[in-house]
């Protein structure tokens, strides 16, 4: 793999082919690309290409292929696992400028978009047709469809409507050698008797290539949406309400829980939603569908809330109130920034019925390390987001944060869950991958990856531990482990 110096000779070629205004090389300016939403790992890229078209991406990748220089695709940089963070020997292919909606079919219910289109902007663009794009990560007002595709992003409404992958029909992909592959079609991601290559590409965390046109499914807006909020005096009652709702065969569009510390942080922020600050837990339930069904479901849900001793039950009377109730949930991550200078947003999954057990375990881990751990989570999926607030300038606090995170993920796996429900592995969780997968599993994944990226130059050092061709980024976990004196990857 080339040394960081290998990029400098390419500056002139890249600038000549793409235009000087699409290339950033000033080391000081490049600092802005050092990290995404996961600020523990920082690394300054060797250059940034500001691509606007498929041809720009192809041109850049061909030049980089000739010199065997690694590259890292990037959208809006809201990833929470270090996915778009690049080593000094790599070039960032920034797709934020590729934000045109290329085609919308209101009859066949799909849209073709460039990867930099912001998730919520797509919904806004089709809302006049009574349609929306279903996956809604909390960062949906910022994050891009390209990033969603790479990460197979989730969101509150994935409980009913599925993850990003369930809404991806196809993609035009620039492979690391600069060649094109058109995966899937508006009619389906997999042709009859073919392989589901588009489905595999989704969730590959930017290590297979760069999608430059993405075909996504659009969904019809429900006839009726009702959003209910219940406040509980203890977390157990909130979790039991979720169990009751599911056991009754109801399928809410979303089931979200915030704990007390999160409620208070949100209420102190510009995203205050009027959540009761004295409650130990707030449960948000959204029901959607045919008007009559939703009305009946809402009554049943209210009864279940009451049976579980809800302190307060509130229902959004109109779209504005619904927006307010959701505002707090969607702004929760940023609001946690009020508690301390840094925030480690964890992402783990347990079987839904193990939620209470998991939360108790997380509290115990927090106590053991003396760290404040707050929880906001997708209760229907068992997808936990423990947030650890810490001061990143304090090495000891950082060490305890990383150690607590490690133990929480082990707890999730021990309970039969996963180390990531929607944030991805990126560089963040390389250490944790062996909790779920052994050498044989990883070898199969590496073989699959090599089909797309035989040189290991596409977003190196991500997803697969010790499999990286890019030595510098791959060393992160070990380096951090060494600095922080915690257990590194096996």
């Amino acid at each position, binding site marked *: 793999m080339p040394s960081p110096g290998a990029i400098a000779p390419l500056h002139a070629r890249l600038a000549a082919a793409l235009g000087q205004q699409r290339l950033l090389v000033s080391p000081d300016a490049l600092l802005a690309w050092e990290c995404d939403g996961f600020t523990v790992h920082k690394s300054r890229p060797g250059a940034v290409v500001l691509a606007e078209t498929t041809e720009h991406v192809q041109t850049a990748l061909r030049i980089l292929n000739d010199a065997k220089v690694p590259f890292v695709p990037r959208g809006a940089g809201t990833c929470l696992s270090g996915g778009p963070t690049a080593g000094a020997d790599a070039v960032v292919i920034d797709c934020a400028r590729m934000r045109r909606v290329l085609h919308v079919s209101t009859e066949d219910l799909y849209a073709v978009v460039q990867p930099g289109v912001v998730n919520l902007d797509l919904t806004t663009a089709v809302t006049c047709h009574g349609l929306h794009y279903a996956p809604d990560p909390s960062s949906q007002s910022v994050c891009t469809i390209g990033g969603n595709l790479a990460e197979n992003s989730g969101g509150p409404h994935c409980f009913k409507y599925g993850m990003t992958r369930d809404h991806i029909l196809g993609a035009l992909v620039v492979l690391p050698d600069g*060649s094109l592959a058109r995966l899937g079609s508006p009619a389906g991601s997999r042709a009859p008797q073919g392989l589901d290559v588009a489905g595999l590409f989704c969730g590959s965390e930017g290590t297979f290539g760069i999608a430059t046109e993405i075909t996504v499914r659009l969904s019809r807006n429900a006839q009726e949406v009702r959003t209910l909020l219940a406040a509980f005096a203890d977390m157990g009652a909130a979790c039991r309400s979720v169990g009751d709702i599911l056991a009754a065969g109801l399928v809410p569009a979303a089931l979200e829980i915030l704990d007390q510390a999160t409620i208070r942080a949100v209420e102190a922020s510009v995203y205050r939603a009027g959540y009761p600050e004295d409650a130990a837990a707030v449960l948000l339930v959204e029901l959607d569908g045919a008007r009559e069904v939703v009305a009946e479901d809402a009554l049943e849900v209210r009864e279940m809330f009451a049976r579980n001793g809800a302190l307060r039950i509130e229902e959004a009377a109109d779209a504005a109130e619904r927006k307010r109730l959701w505002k707090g949930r969607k702004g929760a991550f940023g609001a946690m920034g009020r508690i301390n200078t840094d925030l480690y947003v964890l992402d783990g999954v347990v079987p839904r019925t193990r939620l209470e057990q998991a939360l108790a375990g997380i509290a115990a881990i927090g106590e053991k390390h003396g760290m404040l751990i707050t929880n906001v989570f997708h209760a229907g999926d068992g997808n936990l987001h423990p947030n650890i607030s810490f001061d990143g300038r304090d090495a000891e606090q950082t060490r305890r944060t990383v150690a607590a995170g490690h133990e929480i993920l082990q707890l999730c796996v021990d309970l039969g869950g996963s180390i990531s429900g929607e944030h991805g592995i990126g560089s963040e969780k390389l250490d944790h991958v062996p909790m779920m997968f052994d050498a044989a599993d990883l070898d199969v994944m590496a073989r699959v990856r090599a089909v797309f990226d035989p040189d290991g130059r596409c977003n190196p050092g991500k997803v697969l531990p010790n499999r990286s061709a890019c030595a510098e980024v791959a060393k992160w976990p070990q380096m951090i482990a060494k600095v922080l004196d915690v257990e590194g990857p096996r």
Partner: protein
Amino acid sequence: MNATFAPERVEEVAHWLRQRPGRVRVVGGGSRQHELPDCDGAARLGLGRLSAIERLDPGDLTCTVLPGLERRELDAALAGHGLELPCLGEGTLGGLFASDPVGPAAHGAGNPRGLLLGCDAVLADGTPFKAGARVVKSVAGFDVHKLLVGSRGTLFVATRLHLRLQARPRAVRWVERDELAIDEALRLCRALRELPAAPDVLALRRSDGGAYAVCARLVGRTRLVDAAATQLALQDREPGAPLPLPSPATGEVVRGLALPSALAGLCGALPARGAFAWLGGGRFEACSPDPTTTDRLLAWCTANGCPATIVAGPASRRGRGTPLDPGEARLAHGLRTALDPDGILA
């Protein structure tokens, strides 16, 4: 007929493959073998005896099954918990996912690959591995298990499947209206798609005689379902979707994808006679009396962006279809080579 190895325990699969039995054809219940290319001389790996529900966690909406389990056995077990596997098709579950699974079948209702949460599997060389997880949501690692869908046993042998379940709707009613002209049928399809509680299965079919029928599975609350049935003048029908079409004694079957906007054109391009069925999710199958007619249909599909393949007919013709994108074809070939470099799985 070649020898069949039929393991009774999951571990035996890897052990047997490590002994290098030569070329291997994976068989579940055997119901879809006619769709595969011939494989004379290949040893048969029969998974029918690996038939068990290892875990069923109703509260988590998940289960773990072995690949030889028959669909109807799983359905019976789930019914007791008010759950279902939202996907059409019969046979063994391994075969169901490895072939061309269909559904949840209405347009916009997702893809069966979403139901496959993870699996344990064995590579052709006998190396066991796993991918995915057994919880409803996980993005850890590359989703190699999803490649099982449509792989027809040519990439790896799945030995244990983790599946996602859903609550069975409180009211379910299969309905139909038949003896329709094509434009009437298309209007009815559109009306069904636009119901506030859209059906989760929607199908258009044509009998040998040429008359169209529309059938659907209406779901939700009884009052609502009944009102929709009355409003659209739908009669009750036997549960079950009309795909796949029964393999005809002569002629060929083309399977493809067609979006709603292509449907009128596709129906116009069909052979004058012969069964045809289309699901709201986009999948269609059409019987064709002879190769010339089939090729005409495939030419229409190529010109109109509908991927299609011959799935039944003479061995020499099976697998022909509309051209794949060369880039995608190269990747698909690469994946086969990467996972089964010696071409053992036939």
